[in-house]
């Protein structure tokens, strides 16, 4: 128990300098961006006095960094530790408010994409291991390698073209049908629909989720296929599998019940590691499907030169990824005692 606690503590302490480096990095990247945010906010023809005034209000007339405590970097850091990510220059509301508005859409998409990837990936991976060196095994492995190389936005466009336009089965844009006015509690339309017993909303939200989460899920599942297959092959060589076979337990039961359970721990870790990749994929998927999430907000912020929004979104996503990887490491240490050191 002592060892576990000290491991968790060390892991948390190691995250602190990483957050600091991350904040500093984001700050300087955003500050040297070309283009004047105040000008793009007020229009190029605004009088100089107004621009100077706005610049003063936003604290942009202060030096970026110097040896005093009155500069933009100190303002930025202290605001961050007060949970303030600044005001969006375009929407004129706190960035945190916009993130709260957009994040549930991304979360919903990511959840279903990951669910698809894990279920599909683990099932096919286990099957490939079971039928090793069969035609099915080779095709599954080939698909696993290919799935890395498919651009997710292109796959999205293809799905739109085939299942959205040609067959007209699924909608190709947005989160919910135009005739459904969603009741928003958590912002996750499926969950909100279930809470308020509005099943029309649940159906419409799920309907809209099919194509984007399939596109993103298919891209992500390759890693789960490989991982499951490799782990299963390792596990199937273990003595206890031999023992189970010797006792006459059917092969299918040995593979899917005994072995799969033990191959699952590394898959959990991979889910944590894949989270960063999932976020990158979500940005592209959202753009393809006009999905009103963090990715759309991020791209919009770049185009409007809305740097507090851009900065806030990047920090939020990066912290989320760090948080998830911290969580997974801790969970892993709890499950597998060999990790502690």
């Amino acid at each position: 128990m002592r060892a576990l606690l000290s491991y968790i503590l060390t892991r948390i302490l190691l995250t602190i300098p990483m957050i600091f480096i991350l904040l500093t990095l984001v700050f300087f990247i955003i500050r040297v961006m070309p283009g004047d945010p105040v000008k793009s906010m007020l229009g190029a023809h605004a009088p100089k006095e107004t621009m100077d005034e706005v610049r003063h209000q936003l604290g942009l007339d202060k030096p970026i960094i110097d040896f005093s405590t009155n500069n933009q970097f100190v303002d930025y850091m202290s605001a961050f530790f007060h949970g303030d990510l600044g005001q969006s220059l375009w929407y004129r509301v706190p960035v945190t408010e916009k993130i709260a508005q957009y994040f549930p859409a991304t979360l919903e998409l990511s959840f279903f994409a990951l669910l698809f990837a894990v279920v599909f990936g683990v099932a096919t991976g286990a099957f490939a291991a079971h039928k090793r060196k069969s035609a099915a095994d080779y095709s599954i492995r080939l698909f696993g390698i290919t799935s890395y190389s498919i651009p997710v936005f292109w796959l999205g466009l293809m799905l739109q073209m085939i299942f959205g336009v040609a067959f007209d089965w699924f909608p190709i844009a947005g989160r919910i049908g135009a005739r459904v006015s969603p009741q928003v509690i958590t912002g996750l339309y499926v969950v909100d629909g279930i809470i308020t017993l509005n099943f029309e909303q649940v159906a419409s939200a799920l309907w809209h989720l099919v194509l984007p989460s399939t596109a993103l899920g298919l891209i992500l599942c390759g890693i789960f296929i490989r991982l499951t297959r490799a782990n299963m092959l390792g596990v199937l060589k273990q003595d206890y599998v031999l023992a189970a076979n010797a006792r006459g337990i059917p092969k299918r039961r040995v593979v899917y019940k005994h072995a799969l359970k033990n191959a699952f721990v590394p898959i959990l870790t991979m889910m944590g590691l894949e989270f960063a990749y999932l976020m990158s994929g979500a940005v592209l998927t959202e753009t393809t499907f006009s999905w009103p999430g963090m990715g759309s907000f991020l791209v919009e912020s770049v185009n409007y030169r809305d740097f507090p929004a851009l900065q806030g979104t990047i920090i939020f996503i990066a912290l989320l990824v760090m948080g998830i990887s911290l969580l997974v490491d801790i969970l892993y240490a709890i499950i597998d005692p060999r990790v502690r050191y």
Partner: protein
Amino acid sequence: MVSGFLSKPFRFFISMSKEHKGEWYIIVAGALILFVIIFSSVFAGIIAPYGPVTDVASPYIKEHNLDLRAATPLPPNETFIMGTNDLGFDVFSRILFGSRTVLLVSIAASIFSALMGIPIGLLSGFYGGKVDRTLSLLMDSIYSFPGLILAIALAAMLGPGVTNISVAIAVIYVPTYFRIVRGQVLSVKEELYVEAARSIGAGPMTIMTKYVFPNVIASVVVIFSLNVADAILTEAGLSFLGLGLPPDLPDWGIDLAKGKKFVPSGYWWIITFPGLMIMLVALSFTMIGEGLNEVLNPRLKEK
């Protein structure tokens, strides 16, 4: 010296080729696809039937007295094997010229990452201590960032342009090289032959370049080719989002972004072919990388 440290992995490749038949098929298939694509991109000026930004559809429509507006996207036919886009440009010619942009950016970015990541990884692993801890922390911070999002921020900061986009992509892959090289150095450093070299008075530079580095090459080759595959997808993604490259450049990602609005109208050829090409190029690099990885990494070898 060059032949000195190259011949060892080379001989290694030859000796491994016998027992890894399946993997070598994958590598060779990947290399063949890649060769065809590189060849056609180098000779795009000769192979391409038309220029990348010439309206060829309008003259065709006029000549054949088709009842269409000028520059209407034409589906694939015997004159335009991949059809024409909304500006009347030949899709096939644009794909040939576009391959130059993708290959240039992704390979340049990967070389740049390797040139940054390998020496830093070598130093960090070799000297250890405070330098190592600081560098590792910095690299881990960059590594924990979702790649595309960091690239978006960097691309926005640097502004559009082929060089800028290459640098933006390069930065996100430096930690990959760093981690691999550092890890390898840490294990090689303890080997007996390094100890032996040290005992006969070899300096740190000699040990690093002649004893440690050759052992790292094999992993670097694998990482490089997987890295290019990833860089291709990142480049295409950035172009698709409208970041990075000047919009008049023939580029697959830009063509896809422009073709997005034609999904409802059913002009499938405008978006299908550029995406297929992105997949094919990325796949060829992945196949080479994965194949080499199986050959070079005996840990994964199956009975």
